[in-house]
């Protein structure tokens, strides 16, 4: 018997934490609230109470909710990391969390690329991941893409590496997808590398990561079809190591030249739910709708890990995704309230599990 982290203790706690996640009736109450202020008041009756109260001192409206959500997410994963300190499980959680770091760095780069204001960029960040406020604030302060990358390097954050390496190509082509692809690839390769021992828990996480690779590839393929990218050029934007879709299949998908045609190739995979999307999505080439569906799928699969082996990392994986889902849902509701969207539409946007 190998002495490992005491999953019995840690997972019991995580399950306890999960039991405090908001239930659908609570979300329903939130949806029925007329405005952001009353959502803040309602969150007062949930486990977000303390962070919401703290945040109201400095901020109001959406910003207050976002700050509270980020704090709460941070508290949750710090707590989990504390149970798992010094154990391989810690590595797994960190891999999981870096997904959102990548997402935030990409958001910042994108913002700098099209010269958004700092406030606009902050609004697009997801309140999840490991990068702390200091880092994010300082990154957003930087004047341009290069400076962001340099600051990452200066502060010794590993994501500087792929970005530096591909900066030259980016500055020649003026195409941000070069950098986005580079950092995605770095994340996946790094994750696969860290999980290469293929221990039991490694495999649980690998399953999730390889699925994410599939999802990222599908997104890239569809975008490239929309943007009519040459096959030769397209090939380098694909990431190896996917679960169901190898490079060959992805290339065949690109060759079809239409979104509908490409998605037909997914019929035998778990991603066939995409073909059920209404036809106008494909006609108008609305990739964002498809991306949202894929994201929903990832979240659902992530949360379903919760039903995995109760004495493995699966429980923590499920929890982190469930927590992410919760904060995403709260954000959606809060934002829809500022944009006068009907309750029915909000319900469609949410992801219940």
């Amino acid at each position, binding site marked *: 018997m190998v002495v490992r982290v005491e999953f019995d203790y840690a997972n019991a706690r995580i399950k306890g934490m999960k039991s405090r996640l908001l239930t659908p009736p609570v979300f329903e109450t939130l949806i029925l609230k007329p405005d952001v202020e009353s959502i803040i008041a309602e969150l007062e009756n949930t486990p977000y109470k303390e962070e919401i109260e703290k*945040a*109201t*001192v400095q901020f109001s409206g959406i910003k207050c909710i976002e700050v509270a959500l980020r704090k709460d997410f941070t508290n949750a994963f710090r707590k989990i990391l504390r149970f798992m300190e010094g154990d391989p499980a810690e590595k797994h959680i960190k891999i999981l969390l870096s997904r959102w770091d990548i997402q935030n760095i990409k958001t910042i780069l994108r913002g700098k690329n099209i010269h958004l204001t700092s406030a606009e960029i902050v609004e697009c960040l997801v309140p999840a991941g490991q990068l702390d406020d200091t880092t994010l604030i*300082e990154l957003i302060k930087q004047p341009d893409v290069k400076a962001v990358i340099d600051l*990452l390097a200066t502060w*010794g954050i590993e994501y500087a590496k792929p970005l530096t390496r591909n900066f030259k190509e980016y500055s020649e082509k003026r195409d941000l997808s070069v950098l986005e692809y580079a950092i995605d690839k770095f994340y996946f390769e790094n994750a696969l590398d860290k999980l290469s021992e293929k221990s039991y828990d490694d495999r649980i996480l690998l399953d999730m990561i390889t699925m994410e690779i599939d999802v990222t590839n599908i997104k890239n393929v569809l975008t490239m079809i929309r943007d009519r990218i040459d096959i030769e050029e397209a090939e380098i934007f694909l990431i190896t190591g996917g679960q169901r879709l190898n490079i060959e299949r992805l290339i065949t998908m690109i060759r079809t030249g239409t979104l509908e045609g490409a998605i037909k190739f997914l019929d035998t995979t778990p991603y066939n739910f995409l073909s059920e999307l209404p036809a106008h999505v494909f006609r108008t080439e609305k990739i964002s709708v498809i991306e949202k569906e894929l994201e929903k799928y990832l979240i659902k699969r992530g949360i379903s890990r919760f039903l995995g082996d109760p004495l493995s990392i699966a429980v923590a994986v499920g929890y982190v995704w469930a927590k992410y889902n919760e904060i995403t849902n709260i954000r959606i509701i809060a934002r829809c309230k500022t944009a006068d969207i009907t309750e029915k539409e909000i319900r469609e946007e949410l992801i219940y599990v």
Partner: protein
Amino acid sequence: MLQKMKKVQVLGPKKDLQSVVDVLYHTGTVQLEDISKTIRVGETLIRKMEIEKGGEIANILVKTGGILLALPKIKDDIQKQSLIYDEVQKKSFPDLVVWTNHVIEELESTTKELATNKSDLEFTLNALDRYEKIIKKILPLESQLPILEGFEVTVILIQREFREVLDLVKNALADITKNQFELISADIDELTIAAVIVFNKRYSEPVHSLIFSQNVNEVRLPPEYLGKPFSEILQLISAKKAKSIGEMAVIDEKRGKLSEEWYQELVVLKKVLQDRNDEASVFGKFGQTQYTFVIQGWIPKKYLQRTKEALNNIFGTRVIVNELDVNPEKMDEAPTFYDNPAIVKPFEFLMALVSPPKYREVDPSPILAIFFPIFFGLMVGDIAYGAIILVFAAFMKKKYKTEIWLQHLMNILILSSIPSIFFGVLYGEFFGDFGEMMGWIHPLTIAGITWNRVDALVPVLILAIAIGVFHVFLGLSLGIINSLAKKSKKHAIEKAGMMVAITGLLVVITATAKMIPEILVQPGLVMIIIAIPLIIYGGGFFGVFEIMSTVGNILSYARIMAIGMASVVLALVANRLGGSMEVALVGFVIAAMLHILNIVLAMFSPFLHSFRLHMVEFNSKFFEGGGTMYKPFRKEKEDETVK
């Protein structure tokens, strides 16, 4: 037993709602139910009631809570708080809102400013720390270079795997600056090389665009440090850090002062607002039509009349109380309200630790109240131990009057110590065999057996198992009653089949062991054969395995004998060890210590195991649990800190 509950609907004109709620609140008998859970949208004319003022309270509550959290916590001044509390209680609701808004106005902008400044300073400090770290690494390089007027210093970071870039940069620099540059490089950690370049300002632009085009990073520093030597930057950073820390101290001082002034008031306001908020949220449970309100809830049958009268006295026929017919399944949602004599109360508490019974179930607490002390007594079984436990429990009960849970536990111990003394007489134990050695008492002889627990090991074991059979059968019988109450015939048949199977099994075993005539083996087998189809009918194929687990449950009652035995043996050891000492005093001390240890164990272990026999072996035969306790809508006891 549990109280009979009735589901009621209170209907009346909307204008009376507030007063009806007040009456119900004072009567304190109705457990309110959220009506939106029972009506579906569009199904009836009843709509969920909007909470008036609820939003307003919640908003100022959040703000008050926020301000309170932004200020440092200081000691609660109970006296001052209760003065403020009295004053607040005198206020009407609008006045309370005005008061709170005034306090918020007074504090909001200041606390906001302080909190923002503080978090800005924290970010600055964090960022400075990180910049400082990298500068310290590069500093040794820079000190090797001359600092010249009109020259620029730039630091680049290169990943080690791109070491060759360094030469490339050097060559290019030589071209650009016509050899007027200096470059020193060194590894600063496992992954990175830092290089400091000094060149004439004249070439600034081409040099930077060269760096820009390579796989290297420039060290980024806040703009105010650009162009300064690193040693100076370090000094600037530490100066700024010191300044920030100073500013933080000033902020903290200001916060402290605000706390001194406002903390007590804020605590009280928050508490009052919280109460009002809870009260207001009650309205969200009600339904409404255009002119009337609908309140729905559960009420114990015995309070129904009283409540009706209370409403009738004030509102006459304007407000009606309807008793609703609830189909039996829905009765599972009825709250659990115990109706037991006082002696059973502590055992209700014990049940609630795990899960209270559902409304339609048999309440196990009275049975627990009978058997728990008996099991405990059978295990402890010592006159002296029982007496000491009795005295201890009585003492603790008197000493900690406010701890309700302790009161319950001590009551259980008191109730259990009496059978302990009783069985002590049976076993003839007084501090183990000390009483017998002194010739004070002797084990009783009943049914031809002298009930000395060590010698009569097997009879005690058989007694324990027999108790187990009885107890488990009792559980199964209750299971039949519960199943019938829930109209689930299948389960009733399964339980009955189980009883037949176990009886058959017992007959076969005892007959084989020649404890009863051997001829009974066959009838026993017939019983098992009859029982199995019943069990499969009621509980499916896996129900058959339940026979084995039920047998295991019965054997589990052997713990009554085993734990008792362990306790006796420890007592014997105490007496022997104490007796073998040459100095009597030493012997006495040793014996006393061991007996004390044994008593502590005796309070703990038999307690736990008696509890467990009920929760696991007994309850699993009939108990479902998961009921909700009856919680009427009324004022809770006031918090101790305020008032």
